[in-house]
C-alpha cells in the first residue's frame, strides 16, 4: 500500500496525473471505436441501424478525420485515430469528424431517409464510456 507523505507528494501527483491521462485516452478510444461501427447501407440492402456508420463503398467510414488542439488533420481513415488518442492528455481538445460530403445527410437524415445518428449516440453514451474506463483504471491500479 502506498503511504502518502509530503516527501512523496510530487511522485503521488505525477502518478495521479498519468492515471487521469490514461482514462481520458482510453475513454476517447472506446467512444470512437463505438462511433465507427459500420453496418450495410440501405442502397446495398441494409436497413437503418441507429448508432452505426452506413457502409456502401466504405468512403464515408474512411472519411474520419482526427485532430488535436485544432491542428490540421493528423490522421484520416477508417479506424485510424490512434495517433490522436495516443497523444491525448486530460484537458486536451480533440476533434473527430466524418468529412464525406454526404456525412451530415446520413447522420442526421434527409428526405424519406431516417438518420443513422452515430455521432449523437456516441456523444450521448460518453458518460457511460468514461465511467467504464475509470472503473477499469481503478481495478488495475487498486
Amino acid at each position, binding site marked *: 500500500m502506498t503511504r502518502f507523505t509530503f516527501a512523496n507528494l510530487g511522485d503521488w501527483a505525477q502518478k495521479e496525473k498519468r492515471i487521469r491521462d490514461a482514462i481520458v485516452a482510453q475513454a476517447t478510444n472506446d467512444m470512437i471505436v463505438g462511433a465507427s461501427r459500420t453496418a450495410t447501407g440501405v442502397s446495398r440492402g441494409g436497413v437503418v441501424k441507429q448508432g452505426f456508420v452506413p457502409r456502401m463503398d466504405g468512403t464515408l467510414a474512411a472519411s474520419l478525420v482526427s485532430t488535436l488542439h485544432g491542428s490540421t488533420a493528423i490522421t484520416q481513415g477508417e479506424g485510424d485515430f490512434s495517433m490522436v488518442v495516443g497523444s491525448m492528455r486530460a484537458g486536451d481538445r480533440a476533434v473527430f469528424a466524418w468529412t464525406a460530403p454526404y456525412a*451530415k445527410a446520413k447522420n442526421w*437524415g434527409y428526405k424519406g431517409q*431516417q438518420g443513422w445518428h452515430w455521432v449523437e449516440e456516441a456523444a450521448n453514451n460518453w458518460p457511460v464510456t468514461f465511467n467504464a474506463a475509470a472503473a477499469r483504471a481503478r481495478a488495475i491500479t487498486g
Partner: protein
Amino acid sequence: MKKNAITDALCGRIDTADILPAYMPNVKPSDEVKAATTYFEVTFAASRTQRAGYNAASVRQEIGILQCVVVVPDGGGVVDAEGFADNIETLFTASPILKLSITGGEIIIGTVDIKTGFNADGEYRVPVHIPYIANQT
C-alpha cells in the same frame, strides 16, 4: 415515469406550438404535412436510460437528444430556415432552465444546439438538437 410520457411532452410541445407542419416519429403524415414544402421532421437522435442504483426500485433517468430538422426548399436562402430553427430554440428555452412536468417525473431541457444547415435531395435542412434529462420523481 413512462417513456410514452416523455415522447408526448417533447413532441407535443412542437406539435401544439403550431409553427410548421411536422413529421412526428412513426405518425402517418396528414395531407397537410405531405403537401408542405417547408416543415419540421422530428426524431429522437439518441437516448439511454440509467438508474441511480442497482436496485430496480431506484430512481430512473432517461438522457437523450430530440432532433427537430427544419426543412425548406433548396435555393431559397438560409434566413427562413434559421428563423424557424430560432423558433424551436425559443420554444425549448426558459430562464433559468426549462422543466416540463410529466406523470411521475420531470424533464429538464439542456442548451438547444442549432447545427449548420446542408443541402440534400432538393431541400435545405437545419437540424436543431434538444438535449434532455428526464428524472423520475
